[in-house]
């Protein structure tokens, strides 16, 4: 096994200490890991498997089942476009097209070439009243029009360089 960075083990340990005694803890622990790293790294999975005495296969079957968990490191900017019913009817497909065009992502792909941006479709972010909506990292953008895309992306890019 790859050795784990000590401070990392401490953080993961804190999560384990809280959840280990509880029945059915795996998903909550994975939430903790995902929150820390943005994904579930291979060596952490192995570490969890041995700490929790669960087969690695169990961890992978769970991680790959739930959309919330990723096996790959996240992009710097995750743009989640809501494709719930309300947003779909009010133009989410056009938004996605526009975003991907602006960022030069091919229609079937999710990441930009440098993996800085990821455009993904998600289901209802709970602001249906503001449809169509998207979330960039944690921030929600609502009542979007296709012409809003360019300025929004510009602001992000400027933020990034500053």
């Amino acid at each position, binding site marked *: *096994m790859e050795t784990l960075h000590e401070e990392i083990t401490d953080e993961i340990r804190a999560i384990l200490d809280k959840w280990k005694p509880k029945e059915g803890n795996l998903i909550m622990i994975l939430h903790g890991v995902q929150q820390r790293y943005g994904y579930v790294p291979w060596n952490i999975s192995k570490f969890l498997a041995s700490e929790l005495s669960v087969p*690695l*296969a169990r*961890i992978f*079957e769970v991680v*790959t089942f739930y959309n919330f968990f990723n096996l790959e490191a996240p992009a710097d900017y995750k743009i989640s476009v809501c494709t719930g019913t309300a947003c779909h009817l009010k133009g989410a497909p056009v938004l996605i097209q526009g975003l991907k065009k602006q960022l030069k992502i091919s229609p079937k792909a999710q990441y930009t070439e440098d993996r800085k941006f990821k455009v993904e479709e998600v289901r209802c972010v709970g602001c249906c009243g503001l449809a169509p909506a998207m979330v960039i990292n944690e921030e929600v953008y609502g009542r979007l029009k296709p012409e809003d895309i360019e300025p929004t992306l510009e602001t992000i890019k400027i933020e990034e360089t500053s």
Partner: protein
Amino acid sequence: MTMIRAKINNLPVEVEPGTSILKAAKLLNINIPVLCKHPDLKASAACGICVVRIANYNNKMLRACTTAVEEDMEIITHDPELTKLRRTILELILSFHPNDCLNCGRNGSCELQDLAASFSIRETRFDPNVEKKERDGSTEAIVMDAAKCIKCGRCIEVCQEIQDVWALTFLDRSYQVRMRPAGDLSLAESPCIKCGQCKIHCPTGAIYEYDDTKEVYKALLDEEKYCVVQIAPAVRVSIGEAFGLEPGKNLTKKVYAALRRLGFKGVFDTNFGADVTVMEEASEFAEILTNHPERLPLITTCCPSWVDFMEKRYHDLIPNFSSCKSPMQITGVLSKTYYPDTISVKPSKIFSVAVMPCTSKKTEVKRTEEMFASGKQDVDVVITTEELARMIRQAGIDFINLPDEEPDYVLGAYSGAGTIFGATGGVMEAALRSAYHFITKEHLTKVEFNDVRGIKGIKTAETTINGKTIRVAVAHGLGNVSRVLDEVRSAKEKGEETPYHFIEVMACPGGCIGGGGQPGKISNQIRMARIDALYEDDKEQRSLRTSYNNPYIKILYDKFLGKPLSKKSKELLHTKYIARPQYVK
């Protein structure tokens, strides 16, 4: 117990509470089609083929395999609507399945193919969606052809619940669900122990044995080679199934005949090697029991899947492992050292083939450097019972009607103890018969140890040797094995006396007769038929029930090895184990 009364297709039926509709229907000779349900396994309810109608419950359709019969249920198992429903489901499944029967490892023995035939599928009505997927033959024991997988979950259930290996699981979801090792690794990089249980439980050709017959043909055609072959105990009682016979027919002597007709010059029996294993292992046990009780329990090692499992998961128990090689490896090394002397052939010309009930044996031949004790690879190729059956057919041999023949006795004569190696409990019983003699110098009057026989997952027994109580355990199916070993481990940790002195382990439920290389279907009924046939073979050896009485064994030791655990024995017949990681990555 109060029985449940119900009606199936208007026929009354009475069953114990909890009985599935599927089982209840069987009692009335009604066959409900199934695809995902296997008699060994918990129902996964995945396919939907077995749906039946409950007439007095809103005509609701429920799965026969998972639904228990309830009081007064009126069940309809077959009507035109159900047939149409099943047919559509089948067509849907086939729309994600390649039309590839002619190139398939299961052509002719495929449950999906059978269903398609019986439902008169004549066209692909729904858009075909078959993705080309790379096959995974990395283990060189079994091959996974994911394109043919119908996601029934049987392999996963076996691998996780029965074998406790967890090499396989379902990844992802929806139509992208796939059975794979964690992290999409190859099987060889996973904890897979190559037992092939997934393969014999798979209803389709998605998992099949790694084919080595080409190697065998090549050697048979090579003038320079002198081909010898051995057959494992379990092969003789199952090969008939590949030719349409009932399970449990002992065809030992026809197999010998067929092998000669295929061109093998030396025809041996792994049972002989099993007798040697007994000589060595029983001596080892006698030695440890008297001189090194701290090394107890002694654990058997003739199953390579088990060895693999132990090296990955229980390597703390390596000191408890019998160092004795498996009967196959022993027969192999003797066929390249001892045998050539007896017929004046250069050892280097010998090409040694083993016919095994086992997929794992294909990898055992290269397991460690000790498998090359003769100076070259001791067993060159392993083929399974199924592969042999195919070779026999290809060679145009009318197998069932062959005259009986005898083996080449030098490495072919066997005792009853050798033959029962193929059944769970057999190794233990065979070893006890000899160990008794080695310790007491007396002969057993009754050689049967009935407590270690049968299909129960964990069998324990006590016997008295020289006034000392010997506790033994027999476990098969690695899930059961884990349970026994955890007991041993925890006693060790607490510094308590070991719960057992001698433990027999076989990876496959039922032992090798239920191995991953066996033909046809598997169920406890079939296992029992094969096991019974082996014990029958044991009985038929009348006077020769113990290994140390086998005259050819005596010659072997007199002329070649000296005595059990001699220097030469240790060089040729024993091996070592190392700790290995579960995941390569």
